[in-house]
């Protein structure tokens, strides 16, 4: 018989008070301010903005503190907050070609217009822990170099001139961009919807899948045509103004992956492309996204779907870490009744199993006796 039970209210309240205490930690250590997190843990803030799918540094910083540095919990908090706000509309598509570039490198062209700008990168560092940082010494101002403002066309535009690379991805003229925050996922999905899902997808999951394509599971010979990081201007069409209203700038990371393609019945040999675009300075994520985007275009190019990274339903259904953590973590919540039912079932099956075994033994004994 099932008896409804209640309880745990005091335990829950006290647990939350304890959480608040442990979050604050030793009171003799100064409390973190949000501006410290925004300034000094900027890439963590960017990850929360990208996977929380909400561009707002202070909110991401607050989420990080509230989650005690647990990034997926912080992303969860940001996602939940989003649902409390009204929606004003869709911006005009950003122009990454007009970006105020802070980093831009290409692994395919040494001398491209605008040049190779390393920016604030971890690349070429020795990955040695720096005791001076622990001591909290002063940091020198960065060097400046006078330079003419130079146009920095996307690298894809350069290769396109020779016709050796496929163009930017087009959709039918009357296609309205899908929005996974408004409509449930349906498979197969158009590339625009897939890109939206990938852009907010879990960095670790996409990184592992991207890595798997490099190791031979859906190999597609990628090159980084270009990675660029910087600020782009946002504009919104609103009914009360006769022009698109400027909203300010947001930092994004864009990756143009260029992939060798030997051609198929459907397409001639050419370079194909994967695309990555994410909020903030998130180079690894943008690259992983571009690798996954290309792998997921397998059927479009008539390639055999043989690996996990090419399986759209598998990748997109499992890329969202808020959904994933929700389903995995719910397992620890009370399942007393479920388990009681399972327990009954197993007991019954064991009784039947034992009965069968005993009956079998009895038969054997009788046969032996005869």
């Amino acid at each position, binding site marked *: 018989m099932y008896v409804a039970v209640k309880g745990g209210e005091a335990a829950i309240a006290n647990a939350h008070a304890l959480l608040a205490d442990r979050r604050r930690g030793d009171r003799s250590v100064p409390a973190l301010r949000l501006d410290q997190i925004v300034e000094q843990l900027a890439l963590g803030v960017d990850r929360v903005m990208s996977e929380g799918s*909400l*561009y707002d540094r*202070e909110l991401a910083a607050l989420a990080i503190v509230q989650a005690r540095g647990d990034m997926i919990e912080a992303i969860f908090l940001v996602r939940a907050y989003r649902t409390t706000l009204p929606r004003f*509309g869709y911006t005009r598509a950003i122009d990454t*070609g007009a970006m105020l570039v802070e980093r831009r490198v290409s692994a395919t062209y040494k001398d491209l217009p605008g040049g190779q700008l390393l920016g604030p990168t971890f690349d070429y560092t020795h990955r040695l822990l720096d005791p001076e940082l622990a001591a909290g010494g002063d940091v020198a101002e960065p060097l400046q170099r006078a330079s003419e403002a130079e146009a920095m066309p996307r690298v*894809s535009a350069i290769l396109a001139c020779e016709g050796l690379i496929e163009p930017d*991805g087009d959709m039918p003229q009357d296609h309205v*961009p899908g929005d996974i925050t408004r409509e449930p996922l349906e498979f197969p999905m158009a590339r625009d919807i897939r890109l939206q899902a990938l852009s907010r997808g879990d960095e670790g999951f996409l990184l592992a899948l991207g890595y798997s394509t490099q190791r031979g599971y859906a190999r597609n010979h990628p090159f980084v045509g270009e990675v660029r990081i910087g600020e782009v201007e946002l504009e919104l069409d609103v009914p009360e103004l006769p022009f698109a209203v400027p909203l300010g700038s947001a930092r994004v990371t864009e990756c143009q992956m260029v992939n060798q393609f030997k051609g198929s019945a459907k397409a001639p040999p050419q370079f194909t492309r994967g695309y990555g675009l994410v909020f903030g300075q998130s180079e690894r994520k943008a690259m992983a996204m571009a690798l996954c985007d290309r792998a997921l275009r397998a059927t479009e190019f008539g390639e055999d779907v043989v690996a996990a990274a090419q399986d759209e339903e598998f990748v997109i259904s499992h890329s969202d870490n808020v959904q994933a953590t929700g389903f995995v973590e719910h397992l620890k919540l009370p399942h007393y009744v479920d388990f009681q039912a399972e327990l009954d079932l197993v007991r019954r099956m064991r009784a039947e199993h034992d009965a069968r075994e005993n009956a079998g033994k009895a038969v054997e004994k009788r046969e032996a006796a005869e």
Partner: protein
Amino acid sequence: MREQEARDQQLERKAVMATLAQSTGDDIVLLWNEAGLPSEAELLRGPETGLVTVRGRIGGGGAPFNVGEATVTRATVRLASGQVGHCYALGRDKQKAKLAAIADALWQDPTRRNEVETKLIAPLQSALASARERRRAETAATKVDFFTVRGED
């Protein structure tokens, strides 16, 4: 001719709104108080915070797709002299949105435009430009200068 004028004026107004949206609330308040601009206006809407969905393009220049959302705060005000001003700006700074909407309204008043331009917009614009220039110069210092290493012939 008149159409052209109206279009030019729209572009100018858009540039003013862009400057206000890009600037921080602190900078706007500081200059506002220094300039002694009036901060009384009837609030027609907001200031209120909501979301916009940011769009990118596949491959950089292809079909649009939704990247994610951003917080935006907007306000609409009306001056006693009748001009209606708007602001939409990234973030959740309500005071900034209100002042920027008032600035937009004041700018539309021919008798106030010059004051707004010189005391508020121009200094904000020059601060933004020098910040952008500094960023560009810092990035330029990390540009790779390749040189050729000659092998033996």
